[in-house]
């Protein structure tokens, strides 16, 4: 079922967010960045004919850069809540665009955002009953971005 949403498509969707909203060369490129010391994650859930979630994690440094562009303020002037809001909107846009490719009907949740260390176990986001369907490693300005597509066992399909 992975071919429903290819790695290339996920990459392209994430890149289009950068291209549209982050001016001047702050591109998102395929390939792993270094592991981030401090990470921030956002997630949206998709429910319907396909059930699961889209998770985006990136370094806190990169999240601050994105928030600075979206709020049009210096990074020093950002409130932590601004940074979470910006990450919520990235995952909303990326997740929403992924959702729109899946067979209908599906619905999208409001994003949830969590700060965490590099250990996936440390996140507050529950992962029970889901399996990792795709994982896409990207980087922007040397900072890592990872998009994961989790599929829930969900209601029995045919």
């Amino acid at each position, binding site marked *: 079922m992975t071919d429903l949403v290819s790695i290339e498509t996920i990459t392209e969707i994430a890149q289009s967010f950068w291209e549209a909203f982050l001016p001047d060369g702050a591109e998102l490129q395929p390939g792993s960045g270094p592991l981030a010391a401090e990470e921030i994650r956002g997630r949206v859930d998709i429910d319907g004919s396909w059930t699961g979630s889209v998770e985006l994690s990136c370094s806190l440094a990169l999240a601050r850069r994105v928030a600075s562009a*979206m709020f049009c303020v210096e990074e020093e002037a950002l409130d932590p809540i601004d940074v979470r809001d910006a990450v919520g909107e990235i995952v909303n846009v990326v997740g929403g665009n992924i959702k729109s490719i899946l067979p209908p009907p599906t619905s999208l949740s409001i994003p949830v955002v969590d700060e965490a260390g590099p250990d996936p176990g440390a996140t507050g986001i529950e992962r029970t009953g889901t399996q990792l369907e795709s994982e896409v490693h990207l980087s922007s300005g040397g900072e890592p971005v990872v998009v994961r597509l989790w599929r829930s066992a969900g209601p029995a399909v045919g």
Partner: protein
Amino acid sequence: MTHALVVDDSRAMRSLLRQVLERLGLEVSEAGDGRAAIAAISAGPLPDVTLVDWHMPVMDGLELVTEIRRHKEWRRMAIMMVTTEAEHESMVRALLAGANEYLIKPFTPDAVIEKLCILGLEPGARQTTANGGSAA
């Protein structure tokens, strides 16, 4: 001065749209969900255009469009959906509910300008104006 109301639960997205619209010379107000938008519109003055996100808490964008179009006195206000809902089916639902235009997230600032033009809201501060100068 053209007045735009931006309705989105993301403050980052509202801020981004505000920057684009203010650069075009529009006056911008904001609401964080559908119900807050109804309150803002009721309080007046009537915006020329309302930009509506789809997924929001309390009252979502589609409900908001439906509610706005129940008010005959608000009919001259244009509505533009600004959302990640990119399926044709979603677009048709929004247009049938009374939205006039549809912008898919993510978008470039130029796309916002062009959609405003489609709605007949020629932004005042376009970098290239359609009529050149006025020199006779």
